[in-house]
């Protein structure tokens, strides 16, 4: 393990230790439960199988929405990048939609899709699509005068310039958009699960509050953090390997 990772792990342990002490000495469990109490609650939920179920529900919603949103966002971004007229026609629409937070669509989505899985998939797909699309467009907007000139000098037509010069330059932007999209998807997911779901980590948090189980709330919160770290690390490791030559900044 690297020195940075050891230090980072140390910081987390120290944070948990301070929290444990503060929780035991200052706060009542109903306000701030100790990490040990949260772990015990998490373990109990694990043994009953309830925790796995919530994680699985949240993770599957994220996976479906993330995959669909990444594909759709990259497809639209590349379409806009390859065909300027498409971009001119559709970009105003994108600019119009970009300030609407995905969660604002929750109510109409509930009306259209009900509280089943489809509604969450739609919301997360929308969240991811937007981030990937906007980032891809930003990538295409970057000017590389000499690269473009070299392409013309060395005989690239407009399709070849797109395929061999503009597209590769945009790959890191597409992947960066996917990473941001995944982060934003967690927000969308948790709110959607709190407001319109019977399962999932968001629902676990909200339900625990209703049942006055502060420990349960924190199990849900910690579950989100762990799920997020795992998903992001997996994404980073996979893309680093697959897109080595693009020198991703992670």
């Amino acid at each position: 393990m690297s020195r940075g990772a050891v230090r980072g792990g140390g910081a987390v342990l120290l944070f948990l230790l301070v929290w444990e002490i503060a929780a035991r000495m200052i706060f009542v469990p109903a306000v701030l439960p100790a990490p040990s109490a949260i772990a015990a609650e998490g373990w109990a939920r694990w043994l009953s199988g309830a925790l796995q179920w919530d994680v699985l529900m949240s993770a599957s919603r994220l996976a479906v929405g993330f995959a669909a949103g990444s594909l759709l966002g990259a497809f639209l971004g590349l379409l806009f990048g390859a065909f300027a007229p498409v971009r001119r026609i559709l970009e105003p629409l994108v600019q119009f939609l970009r300030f609407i937070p995905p969660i604002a669509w929750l109510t109409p989505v509930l009306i259209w899709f009900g509280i089943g899985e489809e509604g969450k998939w739609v919301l997360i797909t929308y969240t991811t699509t937007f981030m990937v699309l906007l980032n891809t467009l930003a990538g295409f907007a970057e000017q590389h005068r000499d690269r473009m000139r070299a392409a013309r000098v060395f005989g690239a037509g407009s399709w070849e310039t797109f395929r061999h010069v503009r597209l590769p330059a945009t790959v890191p932007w597409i992947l960066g958009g996917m990473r941001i999209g995944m982060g934003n998807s967690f927000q969308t997911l948790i709110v959607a699960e709190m407001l319109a779901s019977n399962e999932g980590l968001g629902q676990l948090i909200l339900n625990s509050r209703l049942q006055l189980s502060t420990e349960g709330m924190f199990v849900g919160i910690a579950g989100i953090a762990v799920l997020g770290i795992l998903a992001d690390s997996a994404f980073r490791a996979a893309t680093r390997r697959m897109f080595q030559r693009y020198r991703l900044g992670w």
Partner: protein
Amino acid sequence: MSFIAFREVGFRYGEREDAGNSILRGLDLEISRGTFYVLLGPSGCGKTTALNLLAGFEAPRSGSVLVEGRPVQQPGMDRVVIFQGDDSLYPWLTALENVEFPLRMMGLGAAERRSRAEAWLARVGLANHAAKFPHQLSGGMKQRIQIARALVCDAPVLLMDEPFGALDAQTRTILQDELVDICAGSGATVLFITHDIAEAIILADRIGVMRAGPGSALKDEFELDLPRPRNRGSVEFAAVYDRIQRVLGEEVQKVVMREAAA
């Protein structure tokens, strides 16, 4: 008819028509086939602009830029460019793949692309760095990739805009000598821009000195018939250097005075 000709070329950026906005005015310049032509001139006089016109990146506002009597319409593989700086290399391609790029655009098969690109990489001394990416190479190595990428095209015309400008004096000297060797065999016609009079004398068959702008044109030309390889320490070298220095120095002085006044 000369191989390359600038005839009464006028150019300005933007639409303002006043004399102060004119970059080139009435530029006449001829380069015969196989000539290594070096363009000198004070900073900002329009050397790069002239090269861009010949490359086809810009179009003249008046007059014409001709290759074999035909006006330049657009960039093309008959006039390859070695760019100033290394922004034109593709960072996601290895040294070898960068050199293969023009061959790929020509539609050559993988095997032929590879063997031709490898031959040129070896020629510029990068045989052992073929699999490296540009960011893993030094500035001098990156310029060598550019040279290989341009020469792999077998183009009749090479355009070079201060290709060694950003390099240290040692590397620069080495690359100058290599370029002399490479060009001697190729028969290519070269337009080469530099600020370095010594570099000009080492390389050139003919040297043009441009006037300070705005509205720049050619001020003077020098035919160099010193035998090659040229010796930087010889008396003849010093004499030519001195003549060019006097012509160029006057123009540089004008720019300096103007900037001091402003």
